[in-house]
């Protein structure tokens, strides 16, 4: 049994209204920033899974992401290792 840490990134699907992203974009001029665009705001969930192997752990995270962490009608998600290995993003 090992413990794996994952990060699930949940982002609004293309074409779905993202009022937060729009609001941030709207405030950029006040900060004197003009070079930034296409802002999307989503969620990042980090979690640890106890499992016999990475494949098993990942399957649990997959299920969690699809059923709970994201709403498939409006959001898409990606899963990445967030411990030593694949730490990124």
């Amino acid at each position: 049994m090992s413990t794996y840490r994952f990060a699930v990134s949940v982002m609004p699907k293309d074409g779905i209204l993202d009022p937060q992203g729009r609001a941030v974009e709207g405030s950029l001029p006040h900060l004197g920033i003009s070079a930034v665009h296409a802002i999307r705001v989503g969620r990042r969930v980090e979690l640890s899974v106890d499992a016999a192997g990475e494949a098993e752990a990942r399957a649990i995270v997959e299920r969690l992401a699809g059923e709970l962490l994201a709403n498939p009608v409006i959001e898409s998600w990606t899963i990445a290792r967030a411990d030593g290995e694949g730490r990124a993003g």
Partner: protein
Amino acid sequence: MSGTAATPLHRALGVTDEELAAIVERLGRDPNDLELAMFSVMWSEHCSYKSSKPLLRTLPTGGDDVVAGPGENAGVMSIGDGLAVAFKLESHNHPSAVEPYQGAATGVGGILRDIFTMGARPIAILDGLKFGDPASPRTRHLVRGVVRGVGGYGNCVGVPTVGGELVFHPSYAENPLVNVMAVGLLEERLLTLAAAPGPGNLCILFGSTTGRDGIGGASILASATFGAEGQQKRPTVQVGDPFAEKLLIEASLELIEQGLVEGLQDLGAAGITCAVSETADRAKTGIAVDLDAIPRREEGMEPFEVMISESQERMLAVVLPEKAEAVLAVCRRWGLPAATIGRVTADGLITIVSGGIADDGSPLPGARVLARIPAAALTSDAIVHARVASAPTRRRPAPAPGLPVRQAGSLPERGMDSGAVLLALLADANLASRAWVTRQYDATVGTDTVEASERAAGVIRVKGTRKGLVMATDANARVGRIDPWLGAAMAVAECARNIAVTGARPLGVTNCLNYGSPERPEAFWELGEGVRGIADACRALGLPVTGGNVSLYNESLAGAIAPTAQIGIVGLLDELDLLVRPAFRAAGDAVVLLGSGGAGLGGSIYAELAGIDPDDPPPALDLAAEAALLRLLREAASARLLRSAQDVSGGGLAVALAECAFWGGIGADCAVPLHASPADDLFGEAPGRVVASVDPARLAELRALAERHGVPLRRIGTTGGDRLRIALGDPASATAEEGAVAEHGALDRTLAELREAWERGLPRALGEDAGDVVSVASEER
């Protein structure tokens, strides 16, 4: 936790050498490090009231209806039918300056716990907020965060926010004030006190686990001035979890209803240390704490961290051993962690043990006693400092009622259009509609809200009775800055008037004293004057002070805040259908002014906007007249003589008339005799006045009643139309009984333009209309 050669530990913890000597005297030995840490938080100003205690003793606290007064978590007053109301004001100023969203949110959480700890279900929140210049980016950031925080917490726990204040004054720029008032309703038989009686009883800690957040928060944040040094002292920020609080409310009320607890105490400042020492001291018992039994959120916490952590959403219950299982079952049902962490003892000591305690609270063999302190030494017998007070050299005392006042600046006389002044006042950040704020607050959850925010006092009906509770909170910083006695007394008078215009009887007063460092003689003098002002006003109006809170060290490098006595009052309306509201209700009604104002523009919004002679004093306060006005209002309401009533305060008579008119969608044609100057008469903020509308057929009856109470009544106009017209009479005609005053130039505006100015003012002042920086940082979740 350690001292250095240069800074011994006690000083690093904010304990002075004199205080250390007092600790040694009470212990009969030197304290160890854990004990010193416990003393340092309990002897902080926030927990011990070491500077303010002697002053607070001067407040009137007695009254027939008082069920619980100062010293308990909240004041409780009987409202008949076996019911009682609990209410209290508290500050969360410094945490909100550091992190506005969480500071305000945890402020709401803290004051709610004070209410339900007593067995009362929270039924309303009011927030008194003070900030600097609304045009500054920092103020805007603070306003947005604090308002979101109040809403984020209050909305989630499901307690309606029905009132408050939003004030802008430059003295609050670096040190905003976030004062929150909570009101609860309880059956008197369920009143629960925060005491730990009965040696052998168990202490059960339930709610959130204990983490490192807010270590030293109370002592350090609330008891230090913001400055270079304050920066490093900032403790870990506390994050509120309103969801956990909601569960805590339900579990606590269920425990009380089922008769499962002997005493209940919330955990706030100084965490477990405060909860165990205060409950033990109140019952003249002791408590042995089994340190290892305290559920923690983090590993490797030091004993002192566990003992003084200010992790939110925790409660301590004192429970008979045979009821422990039932208590734990209720907590489990609500999904709340709970653990038995100690025993009540007969020795009067707070003993902290690692390694386990026996049923009688004694350490198990091999266990270590980490601290042993008399409970009283931490609380009722804490040090009291005799601070030095000295009045500033140049100050203007309050004018005596009735004295002639020197004429001051009066823009309308200088050819300025009084209609334009009225529009500017209505649009001023301090007077404009608060809808931008109140729209973010759930005001109707609970299905009891009859009236919320925006207009006047909040009104909550009491289900199962015909009664209503009326509540408001007020302060007067501008006048307080000129004369701290007058500012405090006026706040009491205004708040009581806000209650009385609805027809309700004010029951009692809670307050929050926001002042500068008590170590500065001038600031301490201000505090003393403020307390004296509250005491004088409460005695004159026959109101007990049932509780409150003190927040000192409200200073930054930029200086101290204006002395701010925040006042909260709850009133009782025996028959809810007698409720009088502020808006005009019918065309053709007589508009009357009850009470008579004096001159003096000092401390008014007009003065800030237009500028006046710096020597123009604030208006005088006549407390006897104020008391008579309150009595008149109540009788007039019970006789159903008033169609509407609204007190005259910020922006003066013209603003009050404008609000009555555009709220009701009914204009008025008024004529006001010129007494002092046009500016005084239209925009002066002299206390003791109410604008009412009356069915003309019943005017004589009202007039007779007013005469009986010795309250001046003058008919100043008639409602109707879609304009507000105010003619200023000639001084010569001021003695004329009624009606035809010779005109001196009239103010004449449509309701639509008045309303628009009022509605747009606040978003415009905060830059919200043009779009401004929107952050998605954590406050947005």
